[in-house]
């Protein structure tokens, strides 16, 4: 299945990085990648992540970096195991696959919320704010597409124009984009993320996204 998955969002994200001279670094693909649905750290591996790692074993995509899956050390595994050592959520039920460079802003898939095709939704975890969870995309490629729109907006901001510094907030600044992700909004409305939601900000986020549906 993963061989047939085309990551159009990822291609768009790369193109946006190239157009605006943002960091773009693509490592060669991983040799051994878990197949879709295969167990990885005790949970099914997302088919789109599988496709991603068949394309690149770690990448810098503007203001987002993915964790390498292989090498001298398996960073993806090391980070996820390390995050779970105290056995608390959202880390035990998700798989962190990347982050905003140098910040405790992590992106993770949630295996238990996979759709009928096995595609897992993506959540944003704010490690500074009590591991606050904000659902951002119905699948990994949709996240890449959403993030490419975020970058296109960020480069128009004064911070970027003057200092080439990304100052725009993620995901708050692309709430309207998340609201157009129909599957995501349906999952939010159905309360499928409720068990991961612990903070008032997370509840507000979901409520605003649902209300912003065009």
């Amino acid at each position: 299945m993963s061989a047939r998955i085309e990551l159009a969002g990822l291609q768009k994200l790369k193109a946006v990085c190239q157009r605006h001279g943002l960091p773009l670094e693509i490592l060669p693909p991983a040799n051994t990648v878990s197949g879709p649905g295969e167990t990885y750290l005790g949970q099914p591996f997302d088919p789109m992540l599988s496709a991603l790692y068949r394309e690149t074993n770690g990448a810098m995509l503007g203001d987002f970096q993915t964790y390498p899956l292989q090498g001298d050390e398996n960073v993806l595994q090391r980070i996820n195991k390390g995050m779970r050592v105290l056995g608390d959520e959202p880390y035990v039920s998700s798989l962190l696959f990347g982050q905003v460079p140098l910040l405790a802003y992590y992106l993770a898939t949630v295996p238990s919320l996979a759709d009928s095709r096995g595609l897992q939704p993506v959540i944003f975890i704010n490690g500074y704010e009590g591991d606050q969870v904000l659902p951002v995309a119905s699948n990994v490629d949709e996240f890449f597409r959403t993030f490419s729109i975020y970058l296109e907006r960020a480069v128009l901001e004064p911070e970027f124009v003057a200092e080439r510094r990304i100052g725009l907030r993620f995901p708050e600044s692309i709430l309207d984009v998340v609201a157009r992700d129909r599957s995501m909004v349906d999952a939010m409305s159905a309360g499928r993320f409720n068990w991961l939601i612990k903070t008032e900000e997370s509840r507000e986020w979901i409520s605003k996204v649902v209300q912003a549906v065009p």
Partner: protein
Amino acid sequence: MRVRRGWRALSWVLVAQLLMNGCATVPQGGTGGSGSPVEQRGPTPGSSQWEELEEARRAELESALAGMWGVASEVREVGAVLEFSYWAEGGAFSLLSLRRPEWGRGLGSVLEQESFASGLRESLPPYAEGAAGLLRLVLRREEHRWRADFHLDTGAEFPLEAKTWPIQQVGVRVEVLERLAATGREVASRVWAPEGAQVRWQVEVELEDERVGGLETRPPRSLPGGKSVRAAPETVGTWVNVLAPFTQGMGPRKVRLEWEGEHIAGSGLSRWKIVAAEVVRPPPPAPQNAEVALEYRAMHEQIQRQWREQTREGFQTMGILGAEQVALFVVAGWATRGLAVVVKAATPVIARMLTKGGTYAVGWFRSLFVRASPAEKQAFARLMAKAETQGLEALTIGERNEVRAFLTRLDGLASAKLSSGAKDELRRLAREDFLKIHPDLVKRLKELLKGPVDVHHRIPLDFAHFFPARDINAMDNLVAVEPRVHRLINRVWGEYTQRAGARATATEVEAVEKIVKKHFERWYSNTRDVPASEEMLVRSAQKALAELESLFAGVGR
């Protein structure tokens, strides 16, 4: 240690585009340095930016030639010597002094401006486009021409009022000339010479950027008696010609001029000639503010450069200035530009921090400024742009009240809990600063980890309001750790936040920071123990959480 943001990295093409659209972005405070040779302040010869400034360099050369001619055209005495001193840098000429050490005698032929300028036009540029320095240009009047000698002293100390970038504007703007003429008329009405005698008067005029301020005239210590004769009307033109080139410098300063007046035989008027003119600089900043003053000067020069090159209509709507520039403006301007007088009483925290001055105060103010709303920040930046280009005195009463109200509100924010937006902005600034200060450490850690590194605030942003006088983004509050370590540290803080709730105190926060430090410091910006062993991570987290529990037990919670 504070980050110094180099404006060289910025795109002036983008700035120019913004200006065309009615707003401007000004680059971050730049690099500086006292004395010379100094680190490069302007574009490097041969770079594309240097090429783009060719027109500006040409304009500088023509301005300098016109300024010299303004003085030299009135000197026909053969053997007369005029000595001009410029700071020459990046193709820009800043007049520092002029003298007439030899008066000459007998009149030479009348010369045309072009015959004066053509030779100099060829020989001057190499002195201005190489190493920066003090350029002495000695002009000796001969019968049919002026002979020029040059000397460049690259070891001279950099004068703060000098330009380091060329400005694409030939001559002096009309409003500046009008103001000079008005001041010249005032001078002419004050000075006088005794009938049949020669006297020397000293005149001092205040300048700030291009603006002409107060005037002081000092007569000679002893004036011969007799009838006094007033200055001839053409004295005003001579005055304007001498002073005009001095208005093209930067910042506050004075020009001290010595004029010799002589009764014109058979008339009731006196003729006045320039003997010497030199820039008098304000006292240097206090040592703790020396670096800030240089950074501010570099930023101010860039704003002035845009201001002088653009039409006023295009510039009036400018206002997008970053937090770094605003902080430099406020800290540098606190004592020297009268900002303290405007707002001191209403801003106790800001007043205390800014009176201390220094680069820490700049960082502190920046970290405070970003807490304001985007609309407030933009409104303040617009006022700052006006003050930077037209002087603080150009602000209306309403605008001064606006400045006071904003800074008063900001003062309150120093002790208020940070909004999530402000925290996000501070985190993003912290990572940029950390990368700039510790690029090698971050690179090495990434290599060792084969993956990402996080920047951690030792006193978390959630508790910044307990420490209003501390720059929460200062380097002593930031460390690099791998995400797993960061996660566990955040878990300890999360536990404290949850348990303490609204009863959290500064003392407790400091105690928790000590606990965290005790158990996780081995991984703070450290390349030795990475990646951390999972066992050690668990042990550290468990011990820290247990100690936190004891802390709560100690305070009866």
